Each structure stands twice: as structure tokens, then as C-alpha cells.
């Protein structure tokens, strides 16, 4: 663990910072989430570090609470997508046969419709609540995780060492958990980071379109939506959450990149 490159350290630092802020939001935020404390769109001052928003709430406090919502939903959806996608992907790869056929063709079909479009179709009839958002985002994204998990597991499943285990008479449990999983873990962990970023962007986009987190609650995408009129008057309040989204995404990306590189160098190994 000692040779962490500087880019990964920066990534780890900011990722940690955002998650901590999300956890400790009520103790850190200077004002309440919906508390109107000043005039509309006040510039940044010592009182309001990031200024105020379209109806005079402290932007920094809203950012902190909004980040909590964004990170919570994205994390929950990522976990859902990962658990569903990787369990089914591994199952399809190891069992094969009709289970693999049915699952894979269904995923092909799901992926033939752009995710955002399909999410909009579903959200047009479902109540837009946080659990529903998590469910829709998580399940739609599970198709991507399924593809990766299946591909990785299929690659490993044809290795001679897995064949050797089968010839030894090992059960399916040993093969999945002792032979395949340890070798599939690194690419999956790196993918976890990328999926999380995708969830943050996806949720922000939905909220920005007015189809994500509903007022008075707000996530970062929602804060952009609330303040977008200000842009035309040269008020950058809508840019602030956008910057937060981008820095979080870049940080997680840096960490994921590092995990992935570590994997490839392990494969290379010595004497290879």
C-alpha cells in the first residue's frame, strides 16, 4: 500500500472529504436546509460563504445537504446495481446453458434502449420518490454490471486452473468463491467506482430535468435547476453544484484508475 501515486492520493482525499461531509452534514452546515436567511442571490460573503440562492437560502448549507442526498442515493443505487448485476453475471457465466441465454438476451434488449430514455419512460408512470429512484437507477444500471461480471467470469472460467479444479471434483461454491472471485475482484472494484460516478451524473441529470429528487428536498442536480435562471444575469450559483459533481466524479475516477492499474500490474507479474 506504500506506493500510492499522487493522483490516487488526491482522489482518495477528496472522495473521503465528500463522504465525510455527507455523513456529518447536520453538524457542519452553518444554516438549515430550507431556512431563508438573506436576500435573493447575494454574492459570497463571510456570512454566506457561497452566497445565497434563488429564494435567499444559504447556498453552502444547501450544497452540504444536497451532497448528502446525492451521495446517499448514488451509493444505494450502486450497491443495488452491483449486487444484482454481479450475482446474475457470475451465475450466468458459471452455470451457462439456458439461464445464461435468457439473462444475456434480456440484457442485450435492455441495452438497446438508451438508459436515460428508458428511465424517463418508467418515471412517467411511477411516483417519483427516493426509493423509486434508487430502484429504477439501480436496476437499469445492473445491466452494465451484469455484462462486465459475466465477461470477466467467462474469461476466468475457461482458464486451465478452473478446469483443474473441476477435474479435481470441486463444487460450484469453491469454483465461484475461491477460483473465480479473487481474480475478478479488482476489475469489479474499479468498475464500482465508475458505476458510482455514473449514478451521480444520472441522478443529477434526472433532478435537473425535474424528474429526480422533488422539492423541497434537493440534490446537486436540483440545486442547478433552482438557480439556472441566475446564469443569464451572470450569477454563478448554478455552477457551484456542478463543480461539486465534477470534482467528486474526477476524484472517484482517479481512485478507480489506480485500482485498475494495480490489477494489470499484478497480472504482468514477475517471470511472466
Amino acid at each position, binding site marked *: 500500500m506504500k506506493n500510492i501515486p499522487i493522483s490516487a492520493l488526491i482522489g482518495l482525499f477528496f472522495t473521503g472529504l465528500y463522504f465525510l461531509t455527507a455523513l456529518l452534514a447536520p453538524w457542519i452546515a452553518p444554516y438549515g436546509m430550507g431556512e431563508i436567511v438573506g436576500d435573493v442571490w447575494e454574492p459570497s460573503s463571510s456570512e454566506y460563504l457561497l452566497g445565497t440562492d434563488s429564494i435567499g437560502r444559504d447556498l453552502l448549507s444547501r450544497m452540504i445537504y444536497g451532497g448528502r442526498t446525492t451521495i446517499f442515493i448514488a451509493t444505494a443505487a450502486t450497491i443495488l446495481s452491483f449486487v444484482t448485476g454481479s450475482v446474475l453475471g457470475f451465475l450466468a457465466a458459471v452455470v451457462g446453458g439456458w439461464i445464461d441465454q435468457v439473462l444475456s438476451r434480456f440484457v442485450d434488449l435492455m441495452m438497446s434502449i438508451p438508459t436515460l430514455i428508458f428511465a424517463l419512460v418508467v418515471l412517467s408512470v411511477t411516483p417519483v420518490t427516493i426509493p423509486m429512484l434508487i430502484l429504477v437507477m439501480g436496476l437499469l444500471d445492473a445491466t452494465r454490471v451484469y455484462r462486465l461480471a459475466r465477461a470477466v467470469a467467462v474469461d476466468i472460467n475457461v482458464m486451465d486452473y478452473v478446469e*483443474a479444479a473441476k*477435474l479435481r*471434483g470441486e463444487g460450484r461454491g469453491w469454483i465461484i468463491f*475461491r477460483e473465480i472471485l*479473487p481474480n475478478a475482484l479488482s476489475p469489479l472494484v474499479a468498475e464500482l467506482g465508475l458505476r458510482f460516478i455514473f449514478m451521480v451524473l444520472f441522478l443529477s441529470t434526472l433532478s435537473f430535468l425535474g424528474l429526480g429528487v422533488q422539492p423541497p428536498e434537493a440534490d446537486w442536480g436540483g440545486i442547478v435547476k433552482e438557480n439556472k435562471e441566475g446564469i443569464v444575469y451572470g450569477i454563478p450559483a448554478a455552477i457551484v453544484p456542478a463543480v461539486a459533481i465534477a470534482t467528486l466524479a474526477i476524484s472517484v475516477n482517479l481512485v478507480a484508475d489506480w485500482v485498475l492499474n494495480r490489477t494489470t*500490474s499484478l497480472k504482468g507479474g514477475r517471470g511472466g
Partner: protein
Amino acid sequence: MVNLLSVKDLKIGATVYPPGEKPHDIEIVKGVSFDLEPGMVLGLIGESGAGKSTIGLSAMAYGRGGVKITGGEVWLNDRDILKGGVRGLRALRGAEVTYVAQSAAAAFNPAKKLMEQIVEATLEHGRASRSEAEARAVELFRKLGLPNPETFGERYPHQVSGGQLQRAMTALALCPQPDLVIFDEPTTALDVTTQIDVLSAIKEAIRDTGVAALYITHDLAVVAQVSDHIMVLRHGEMVEYGTTDHIINTPQEEYTQALVSVRSIEHEEKAPAGDPLLKVDGVTARYRGTNFDVLKNINVELYQGQTLALVGESGSGKSTMARAITGLLEPTQGSIHFAGRTLSHYLANRSKEDLRELQMIYQMADVAMNPRQTVGTIIGRPLEFYFGLTGAEKRKRIIELLDEIELGEGFMDRYPAELSGGQKQRVCIARALAAKPKLIICDEVTSALDPLVADGILKLLLNLQKIENVAYLFITHDIATVRAIADSIAVMYQGNVVRYGQKSQVLSPPFDDYTDLLLSSVPEMELGWLERVVSSRKMVSAGN
């Protein structure tokens, strides 16, 4: 006589990027010098990592990947090409010096016709007009024994066979009428019966055109057929240099002597005794979704403590046979009897005892071991799984096995990536032995190894057979290996066993046509072997 090529104190380095360490420079070639006269052939021989390809490419001042020439001089036609600059090099490559790659299949552009690629360098350097160049190419096709030489160039690379492509690559190298051709393992990827044709075609083409050549290979018997001089390399340094006769017949250095005497293991064949341990009875098999049999009515037997070698070229069905016996591919007809029982065709229906007594060792030891498990875990798992050994008892047995494969206790906590190729294969052998099997299937277990390392593995296997009284089903394409290890032999060709019996009987005349072709195609470490075989074949075909 003036030298065509003169290499002086050549040093070549590369930057390596080991995981978890800072990138650093290593020296691949450590001060090598040699001269080559016009029209002569110099063989560069060595094991993998000896730097032979790197030295060969330095005659074109070319470094593959991150490889850089760091010192010395390379004189070609009386000028130092390392000082020629980019333009000088371009003028030289493809004109004065040309290159024949190991894998012609990869070295030809898949999107262009062969003729276009073969005459390209000639036209580029203005060494002939298009019509002259094409006429020259057709002439070369004819000389190299390619079918329909007039129209051969109209084909795309994927439309011709591997052996033909390798000859087309030779035509590509000879078309500009260069002074020097670098042959980089041109026959290594070919089957042995194809290799001899390509080899003799190359040799004739060299002789007829009077071109000089550097011939790079790991196979001393092959290089002995084509070169005038041989340089033996090891770890980037020259071990010995001399005429081919000198290197083959009176080598001075210990390393060269070892290379010459490799594969000369003597093994006295054992006669069948008692009931057969394995009896393959009329087995026919095909892959799912295909409609032709890859195994056709196979009948062979193997006795306890003995070795049956399955010999054949790629596509002969020898590896499929291993899959049928292990239960990975269900035969469509026939039965397999093992240790007095009839084995189920399905892996899932075999008893734990069936599985334990029948172990397997693979060709690629790298992928036969889980990279995330230590050597101790890898060898320990069968002990735990079949015998329920744990703790100190298991550890003791692992150490015993490590001693048996001549590695020792120190290897227990290492990961596969930390082992050399030969060590990896030894660990795989230990894993098979741990199950105390009656039969081990060895699928090309020495093919991926350097000759000396392979020799060590074969000796170990023979030794273990004596101690453990285990039988081997030894699958290989290499006749020398068969001679070294087998008691009985089955020669396979297109899914059939064409010849089967005790080793002495299979390897002595009268032969069937295929076995004759196969046996006579194996290069022997002897001057003039190639001419002898080729002329005797010509006589046979003239006689027909």
C-alpha cells in the same frame, strides 16, 4: 574477404517497468561482436531471453518496443548504420537488409493482396519496375514451391495456409534482392512436416540467390541445416562461436555441449504386464454443434507405471483424446475403462476416487495455477480435498512434495508469478502427485519450455514414475520427447490412430506413409540431414 556485416561490441538496453518498483534500465545484450561475409549464413542460437532476436534486428538498427541500442557499432557495406540517421535507415531497410518474421500470419497486412505487399519494398526503394518486381516475385513463388505461382500473389493472407504464408514472407524478403536477410524463427510456429518443406525452400532460395543471412532460432538441429557458422548466445552474451561442424561435433563450452546433447535421455521400454490400467475401447467423439468426428474409433491401452505417448500434429485429435478420458468431452461411442472400472462419460457422474486417480498436467503452467494462490495452497488443496489433511500433517506432506520436485520448502509461500517457467511446471506436477494418482495425463507439458528446462522436467517425470509407479499418458508433437519417455506409442492423424504398439516396434520400419513422413521430418543434429531427407523423398516420388 571484405565483411558484409560487422558488429562491434554491441550493447542493447531496455527500460523495464516492474510492478511496485521504479522503472529502471536493464542491459539485454552485453557487448557482442561478430562478422558476416557476403553470401554466408550465420545462425544465432539461444534460449528465450538470450537476446538473439534483438541482435538480429540490430542489423537493421531496429529496436522492438522500448529496446534501444546503447553502444557499439554496426557496419554494413562499409558504413556504420547507427550513424546514418532516420533517412539512412529508411534507405537501408527493405533494400539492403530485409526481415522474415516468426509469425507470417501476423506480419502480413490482412487488408492487402500478397503481391502488393511483396513488391512494395522493391518499388519503394526503386530497385525494379513494377513489372520486373512482379516477375521476380512469381519466380520466387516458383522457387519456394508455392502452388500456382502465377496467381498466388492475387490472394489475401487469410486465404493461404500457414506454411505457404511463411514462404510468401521469404519471397517478400528476397524480392528486393537484398545483401542480407534476417530470418527470425521462421519455422518455429509450423508443424514438423510443414517445417521441413519451408526449411528446404528457404535453404535453396538462400543458395540460389547468394544472399547472406542471419538465421535466428532456439533449435540447434534446425540451424545446423542452414548455416555456415553458429553463434551460441546466453543472457545477452556470446558463449561460443564457430563453424557449424565445430559447434555440432566438437563444442568446447559446457553450455553448448548441454544444448547439443539435449533430448538424448535414454529410456528402456517396459513390456506390458498384467491387466491394462487404462483401456480406451472404440471411442468416437465430436464437439457439440459440429458434424464431424474429431476422434474416430480409438483403441489404446496403457499399463501401470508405464508411459503411452500420443503423437501427432496440430489437429490430429490428441488433445481431444485427453478431454474424452478426463470426462470434459462425452464420447458418442465406445467406452473408457480405468483401474478395472468403467468410467462414466460425464465428469459429474464420476466418483471422487475416479477423479483422484486420474490427474492432469497442462501445457501452459502459467494459466494452470490460480495466480491468487500460493504454491502451498495450490499443492495443499488436493491433500485437503481427497485425504482431509490439515495443519501440520498437510504442511509436512507439502514439503515432501516440494522436495520431490526439487524445489524445497522455501517455495511454499511464493505466488506463481514469482516462479520461472520450469518451476511453475514442477509445481503443477506436485499438485498432480499430491492426489496419489494412478495415471497422469501430460498435455504437451514441455512444449512451452526451453530445451534444457524441458529436459529437466522429462528427467523429473521419469524419476517420479520409478518412485510412485504412476502411469503417464503423454501427449506431444515432438518425436524426440517421445523417444525419451515412452514405453508405447500411438501415432494420431486426422482423428485416427494410424500406428500403435511398443516404442521399439512403432519406431522401426516398415513404416506406414504418415509415420514415415512424421519421423523423417524431425530435424536431427547432424550436418547434411536436410539434403539427405529431401533427396530421398525426391527419389521416392520419382520412383512412383
